[in-house]
């Protein structure tokens, strides 16, 4: 009888729910303080987290977000409860201007003296007042060596009509317009309307050759041969190269975007001491090196560099050649001028 079946199902569901409920309650030990970290997925080696937990007699609860903007929208709308967050630098400036962060107490984080001064020179928060650099990546071009003839390390590769429909660029307004700005020789933080309009025209030209704008799936795409040439992040491409040796990664000679994800402490953070301890822990050179090897991005901790494996130390996509490094810039938040980029991006997206 159907009713009986329904009742049985409901009973079973109730039992399962009760089971989970008690399991959940049993798991939470109230004595240990909990540090809440809001970060990208797989962005810290689990063994290191376990080590931190045992050294500090605490629990680390990691929640993840999939984009800076989503995280910001959520926090701006009022969500609290997170202690340490790892936004990208431009987002850090924005959050700082919106009074969402608290200043760092340098006495509690002595290991930040190991942070690479060369990077700090171009960083947005040079004095590390509100943020400590965590992982560095740069945006370049990855391509399949066997399928792309006559590759030149320049952004103009996107003009190649023979690769039409098999290329992607990032679905990121700043990255893609930035690539065009760099190609034209301008700064990628430019707010000059003429420069922006010129860059917009360039991207529209490139768009005709693109399969789509894509932020994450370019990795799968190039690994499977769906795409032949993609605009992507060094750290991601490194992961894919491990599987497909035909993939090469290059920073174009005109320079590009240098991004850094930083460690910050939320203004509403509860566990301030623990948060500082966590940041301090991550910049211990041995920890930083282990983390780098695991994540395959680069932790700008100069005393960790000698501890890295050859594969990373000698990789030109990670440790850039000095003349190209000089042409790279870090993306800054543009505040109200953001609207200028929005307008160009809308036009690019709307045009056929």
């Amino acid at each position, binding site marked *: *009888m*159907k*009713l009986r079946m*329904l009742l049985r199902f*409901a009973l079973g*569901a*109730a039992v*399962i*729910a009760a089971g*989970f*409920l008690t*399991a*959940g309650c049993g798991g939470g030990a109230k004595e240990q303080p*909990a540090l*809440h970290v*809001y970060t*990208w*997925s*797989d*962005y810290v080696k689990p063994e290191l987290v376990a080590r931190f937990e045992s050294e500090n007699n605490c629990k680390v*609860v*990691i*929640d*993840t*977000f*999939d984009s800076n903007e*989503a995280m910001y*929208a*959520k926090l701006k*709308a*009022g*969500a*609290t*409860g*997170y202690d340490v967050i790892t936004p990208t630098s431009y987002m850090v400036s924005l959050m700082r201007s919106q009074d969402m962060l608290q200043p760092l107490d340098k006495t509690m984080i002595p290991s930040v003296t190991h942070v690479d001064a060369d990077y700090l020179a171009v960083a947005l928060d040079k004095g590390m007042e509100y943020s400590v650099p965590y992982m560095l990546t740069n945006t370049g071009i990855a391509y399949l060596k066997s399928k792309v003839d006559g590759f030149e390390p320049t952004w103009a590769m996107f003009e190649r009509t023979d690769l039409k429909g098999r290329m992607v660029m990032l679905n990121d307004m700043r990255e893609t317009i930035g690539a065009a700005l760099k190609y034209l020789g301008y700064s990628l933080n430019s707010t000059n309307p003429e420069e922006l309009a010129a860059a917009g025209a360039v991207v529209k030209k490139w768009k005709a050759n693109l399969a789509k704008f894509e932020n*994450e*799936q370019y*990795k*799968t*795409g190039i*690994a*499977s*041969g*769906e795409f032949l040439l993609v605009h992507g992040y060094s*750290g*991601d491409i490194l*992961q*894919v190269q491990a*599987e*497909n040796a035909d993939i090469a990664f290059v920073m174009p000679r005109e320079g590009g975007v240098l991004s850094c994800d930083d460690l910050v402490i939320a203004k509403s953070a509860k566990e301030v001491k623990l948060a500082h301890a966590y940041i301090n822990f991550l910049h211990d050179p041995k920890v930083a090196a282990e983390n780098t090897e695991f*994540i395959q991005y680069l932790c700008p901790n100069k005393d960790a560099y000698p501890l890295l494996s050859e594969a990373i130390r000698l990789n030109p996509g990670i440790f850039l050649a000095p003349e190209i490094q000089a042409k790279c810039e870090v993306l800054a938040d543009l505040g109200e001028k953001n609207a200028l980029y929005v307008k160009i991006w809308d036009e690019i997206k709307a045009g056929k």
Partner: protein
Amino acid sequence: MKRSRFPFIVTGFVLVFFYLPILFLVVDSFNASRFGGAWRGFSFKWYERLFHEPAIWEAAKNTLFIAVVVTFLSLVLGTVSALALHRFAKSRLQRFHYTLIYTPLVVPEILMGISLLMAFVAAGVRLGMATIILAHVTFCVSYVALVVLGRLQDFDFTIIEAARDLGATGWQAARRVLLPMLAPGLAAAGLIAFTLSVDDFVITFFVAGPGSTTLPIRVYSMIKHGATPMINALSTLLLALTFTTVIVSQRLSKSGAMEGGQ
């Protein structure tokens, strides 16, 4: 009397359509490649890694718990409202009620998520599992109400009155007359509510509290750096579990039915 074969052919096609991506999903869980594009050899490593990822199991547990509670609550609320909509269909209150019921379907999830978050923050409600449940029930109620309403079409409430005239209490009449009649509608509506809750990402992202993550949130954030084939493995396990349960219960009910006579 020849019955048309057409509906069954279409059903067959629909099932093939549904399971084609599932086939790919399952096969990819055994693909040694992390990026799921090309086949790089058979491997169990994603299953092994899955068992060493407490974060994913924690999220799965939360997701399941939330879905069960949400299904129950929205079934109750939705059925009651469907009864009102059907029984008193002529009244003005019900017309407004009907609009209220289907409007949540219209609001884009992003805005529903942000506005709920703002409302919770303004009211000083702490984000956590409870807020996720509240949000899910809000959009599931509409689905349940509409499905049960479809079930109630042409249902004549005089049957209930007749039962009561014959001596049944209100509760007995409901249990013996109304509920059995509604049962398939409740089952269908419950399945919809459960599915919606299990898979919701956008709204859940905004109203989840620290430490109360769900599987969709984990999966979305894994796209950037994480190893998504683990989710393929998890999904395959879920499918295997569900189908095994179904087959076992079918076997049990078959032998039970044979003994009890059909």
